[in-house]
C-alpha cells in the first residue's frame, strides 16, 4: 500500500445571520396550530434500488453521495457470539478484535496501525450476539487502498500471538470493573433474569473462558464464518456506484477458504419467576428495571400497534406518560422510559421499563409506574394522543434515513436479521401501517404486552434505605408484583459465581 502526503482545502462556507432590532411581528399567530405548512410527502428510500448481489456471495447496499470526500464501508458478518462454544465464551469477540488489531499475512499489526493512522482513516470492529462488523471510514481518494486493506484483514488475518496476549490481558482486566458501577450490575442481572444465565443472549466471558482461547481457536472460528456468503456490505459516501461494484466483486472473489452457513440461533429462553430481585450496593440512587415477558416479535400482526402503544406509554422521550408522571410531576427521576425491541423476526424480546431514583423514593416511583400500567391496560388512549404519536412516528422517518450511512446500514441490518426477506415492503408500507392503528388496537396490545402477572422487578441499590421508604408516601417496596423479595448476591467479577455473604 502506498502512502502519500495529503493536502486539502476545506470546502464549506458558512454565513452567519446577524440580528437587528426593528419590530415586525403583526402577523405572528398566537398559537403554533395556526401556522400553515406546505405538505411534505416523504417516501422512505427503497431497499431494492440500493441492493446488489455480488457473484462472489455478499449482498451489498450502496448509497452514493458525493458532497463530502469520505467513504464509509461496513462489512456485517454472520459471526456473532451465539456461534461460539460455551467453554470459549468471548471467542467471537476476540476474533473480531484481532482481525483489526492482529495484523495480516502481508502486514504486521504495527504496519496496519501506521497505515490507517497516516491515511486519517478509522478502522473499527464490533461484535454482538448475532453478528459482528468491521468498518473502515476513509477519505475517498484512498478507496482503492481501503478495499485492498479490508480484503487483507478479512481474508488473511494473522491473529498475531503477541497482540492476542495483550488483548486477552486487557479483556480480563476489564472484567475487574464488573461490580464498580451499579448500572453494569443492573444490565448483567437483567439479561440473566430475562434470558437465563446460560443463553447466548446473556452469557458473559469469564477469566477461565478467555484464558482458554488460543490462536488456533481464532483461526478456526474465522475460517468457519468469515467468508463472503456470510457478508452483508454497506457502502455509503463519495464513489461512483458502477465502479465500486466492480471493485467489490474483485475484493470478495477467490476467497482463500470456504466456510459454513451458520445455523439459526436457539430461541428457548428461561424467564425468571415474578419477584422483586434485589442487589445491594451502597449508592444513593436505586436503579430500577421492570421486565415483562412480551410475546410480540418483529412482523407480528400487532407490530405497529405495539410501536404506538410503547411510544405513548414510555418510549416517547420528553412526551410519554411515564415521563410526565415520574419526572415532570414529581421530580423523581431524570431518566424514565419503556423499551420495546421489535427487531428479531425469530423471537420476541422482553418489554422493559427503566428508571433511577433516590433510594427512599423507589417505592413511590414504582407506584406511579404501576398506576400508568393499569391506566393504559384499562382505558383507550385519547384520539389526540394517538394522532400525536402517529404524526411523530411518520415525521421522524425522514430523520431515520437522513444520511447515506444511515440508509445503507439500516438496509444491511434488515437483510442480516431476515426482516428484508420476510417483508421487503416494510418501509414502503410503514406510514400506511401506522395510520391504520386504532385506539382499540392500542388497548388490546397494551393488555398483551404489559403482562403484570409475569412481571419482575430488578433493583440495584442501597437495600435498607430503599426499604425504609419516604414519610410523605404511604407505599412500600413489597406492594408490587408478588411482594416476594429475592436477594441476588454480587458475583465474583472474574468467575461470575455468587460471592458468599460475609457477616
Amino acid at each position, binding site marked *: 500500500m502506498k502512502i502519500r502526503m495529503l493536502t486539502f482545502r476545506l470546502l464549506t462556507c458558512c454565513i452567519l445571520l446577524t440580528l437587528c432590532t*426593528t419590530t415586525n411581528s403583526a402577523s405572528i399567530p398566537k398559537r403554533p396550530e395556526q401556522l400553515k405548512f406546505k405538505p411534505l410527502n416523504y417516501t422512505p428510500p427503497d431497499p431494492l434500488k440500493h441492493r446488489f448481489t455480488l457473484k462472489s456471495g455478499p449482498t451489498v447496499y450502496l448509497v452514493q453521495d458525493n458532497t463530502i470526500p469520505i467513504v464509509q464501508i461496513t462489512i456485517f458478518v454472520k459471526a456473532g457470539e451465539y456461534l461460539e462454544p460455551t467453554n470459549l465464551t468471548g471467542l467471537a469477540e476476540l476474533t473480531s478484535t484481532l482481525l483489526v488489531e492482529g495484523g495480516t499475512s502481508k502486514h504486521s499489526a504495527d504496519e496496519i496501525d501506521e497505515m490507517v493512522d497516516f491515511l486519517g482513516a478509522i478502522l473499527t470492529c464490533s461484535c454482538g450476539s448475532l453478528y459482528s462488523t468491521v468498518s473502515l471510514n476513509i477519505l475517498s481518494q484512498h478507496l482503492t487502498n481501503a478495499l485492498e486493506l479490508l480484503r487483507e484483514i478479512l481474508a488473511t488475518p494473522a491473529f498475531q500471538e503477541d497482540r492476542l496476549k495483550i488483548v486477552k490481558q486487557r479483556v480480563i482486566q476489564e472484567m475487574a470493573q464488573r461490580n464498580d458501577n451499579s448500572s453494569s450490575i443492573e444490565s448483567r442481572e437483567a439479561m440473566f433474569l430475562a434470558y437465563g444465565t446460560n443463553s447466548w443472549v446473556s452469557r458473559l466471558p469469564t477469566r477461565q473462558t478467555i484464558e482458554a482461547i488460543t490462536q488456533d481457536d481464532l483461526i478456526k472460528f474465522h475460517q468457519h464464518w468469515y467468508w463472503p456468503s456470510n457478508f452483508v456490505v454497506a457502502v455509503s459516501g463519495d464513489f461512483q456506484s458502477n465502479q465500486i461494484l466492480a471493485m467489490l466483486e474483485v475484493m470478495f472473489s477467490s476467497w482463500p477458504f470456504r466456510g459454513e452457513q451458520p445455523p439459526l440461533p436457539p430461541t428457548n429462553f428461561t424467564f425468571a419467576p415474578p419477584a422483586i430481585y434485589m442487589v445491594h450496593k451502597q449508592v444513593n440512587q436505586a436503579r430500577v428495571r421492570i421486565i415483562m415477558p412480551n410475546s410480540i416479535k418483529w412482523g407480528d400482526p400487532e407490530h405497529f400497534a405495539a410501536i404506538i402503544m410503547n411510544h405513548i406509554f414510555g418510549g416517547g422521550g420528553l412526551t410519554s406518560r411515564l415521563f410526565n408522571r415520574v419526572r415532570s410531576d414529581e421530580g423523581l427521576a431524570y431518566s424514565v422510559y419503556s423499551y420495546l425491541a421489535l427487531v428479531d423476526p425469530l423471537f420476541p424480546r422482553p418489554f422493559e421499563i427503566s428508571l*433511577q431514583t433516590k433510594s427512599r423514593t423507589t417505592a413511590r416511583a414504582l407506584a406511579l409506574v404501576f398506576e400508568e400500567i393499569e391506566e393504559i391496560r384499562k382505558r383507550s388512549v385519547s384520539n389526540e394522543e394517538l394522532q400525536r404519536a402517529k*404524526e411523530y412516528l411518520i415525521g421522524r422517518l425522514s430523520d431515520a434515513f437522513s444520511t447515506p450511512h444511515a440508509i445503507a446500514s439500516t438496509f444491511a441490518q434488515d437483510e442480516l436479521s431476515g426482516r428484508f426477506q420476510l417483508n421487503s415492503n416494510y418501509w414502503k408500507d410503514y406510514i400506511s401501517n401506522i395510520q391504520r392503528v386504532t385506539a382499540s388496537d392500542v388497548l388490546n396490545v397494551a393488555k398483551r404486552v404489559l403482562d403484570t402477572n409475569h412481571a419482575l422487578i430488578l433493583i440495584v441499590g442501597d437495600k435498607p434505605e430503599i426499604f425504609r421508604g419516604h414519610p410523605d408516601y404511604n407505599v412500600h417496596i413489597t406492594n408490587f408484583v408478588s411482594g416476594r423479595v429475592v436477594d441476588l448476591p454480587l458475583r465474583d467479577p472474574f468467575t461470575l459465581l455468587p460471592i458468599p455473604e460475609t457477616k
Partner: protein
Amino acid sequence: MVERHNAPRIAAGWVAKVGSANERPGITGIAHLFEHMMFKGTRSIGSKNPKRDLQIITEQEAIREQMRQEERKIREMLRRGEIPDMINPENMTPRWRELNAKFQKLVEEQRKLLVKNEFSKIYSEAGATQLNAFTTEDMTVYFVSLPANKLELWMWMESERILHPVFREFYSEREVVMEERRLRVEATPLGRHYEQFGAMFWNSVPYKWPVIGWPSDLLSISKADADEFFATYYTPQNITLVLVGDFNPREVERLTRKYFERIPRGKIDPPDVVTIEMPSVAEKRMYAQAECNPQIEILWHTVPFAHKDSYALSILATLLSGPSGRLHRKLVLKDQLATSIWVNQASQRWAGAFNIGAEIRDGIPPEKVEEAIYEILESIKREGVQEYELQKAKNKLLATQYRKLEDNFQIMLTLLIHEGQGNWREVNERFQKLQVVTSDDVQRVAQTYFKRENRLVGIFTRKNPDN
C-alpha cells in the same frame, strides 16, 4: 445558515453564550437548571389557564420565600452538627414540613391546569426529533431536527420561549436535576473524584465548580435567581442561531426577522468574565482509592480557544494519540505498562488544559507509567517531532474535519460549539492554522507547557472492598 438539500430535514439550534463559568458560589448549577426550565413552556404554551397559572406561581414563591428562611436555620443546624444532611426528610424542621405541605397543595392545583410538556409535544407531533439541549462551562445549546416544511414552527417556538418563558414546575425540576446529579456523579464510581479533580485544577477561573452545581446550591436556587440570570444572559446580543439543511436562505432570513426581531435587545451587554487564570506555582497531586481499575490522569494548564498556541497543542495531542501514536506504541504495546491511553487538548472559552491519561496494567506501579509519559514528553522537548509524524497528525485532523460535515446535525453542533467558545468563523480558519504548524512550533509548546509546576496528577487505585 448552511444550505444542504440531501434530505427533507433541517437541523436547527441556538447557543446562548452562558454557562457555569458565569455563575458564582451560591447559585452554581443555575445555567444548567435554566436549560431544563426552557422546556417548561411559555405564556401561551403549557397551561390551560395561563392567568391562574401565573398567580399560582406567585403564591408558590411566597411560600418558598418562607421555606428559604427556614432553610437558613436548617443550614445553621447542619453547620453545628445537629443534623447530618439536608436531604433526608426527617432532618427538616416541622415548620418547613408544614410549609412544604402547603406548597404541595399549590403544586397539585397547578398540575390540574398544566398541559403536560406541551412544548415538547408540539415539536413531537410535527415529526421533530432529537429535541434536546446541553450546558457546559461556556455555553447553553438548544437544538432539534425538523421536517423541512416545519421551518416556521421552529421560528415560532424558539422566539416564543426566549420572549415569553414561564418557569413552571421550577421546584420539581430542581429535584429532577438532583436525580441527574446522582445518576451522573454521586452514584458512579468516579463522578465525585472527577468533580474534585476539576476543583483542584483551576486556580482562579470560574471552572472550579461542576456544571451541574453543588447540591447545597441547587437546593437553594430560587425562581428570582433564575429570572435575574435569564434577564442578564438570554438577550439577543448573546444568542446565535444556526440552521443546516433543506431550506431557502431568503426564507430563513425573512422568517428570522419576523420572529426574532421582536425580541428587544438587552439594555446592557452580559458582563465579561474578567478573571484570568493565575499561573500555578507548584505541582498538585491527588491520590484516590476508588471502585475502579488503576489509572492515572495528568492535566497541564494550557491555553483558551483560538489562542495562537492552541493549534500546535492540538497537533501534539493528535500525534501522541491513536494506535500508532508514540504513547500507545511505547506504553501499551512495547513496555506493556498500560492497557489504554487517552490524550486531549481542550481549549475552552476562558482557559484550557492538556490531558494525558492511562489505565494502568494490573501490578504495575502507577508512578512507573507516569515516568514513562514524562520521558516521551521530554524527548519531544529535546528533539521535536519528525516531519512524518507531523503530517500524519495533520491528515488525521483533516479527515476528522470532513467527518464533521457528514450530516446536518453534526455541522450544526460544530458551528454552535465554536460560536459558544468564541467565534463560529474558527470552523473555517482553524484548519489553515493547523496546516502551517511546524515541528519547531510543537517543540516550543511542549517546552512551554509541560512543566512540573504546571500540572495536576491524579492517581486512582482500586479500593479494597473489605475496608
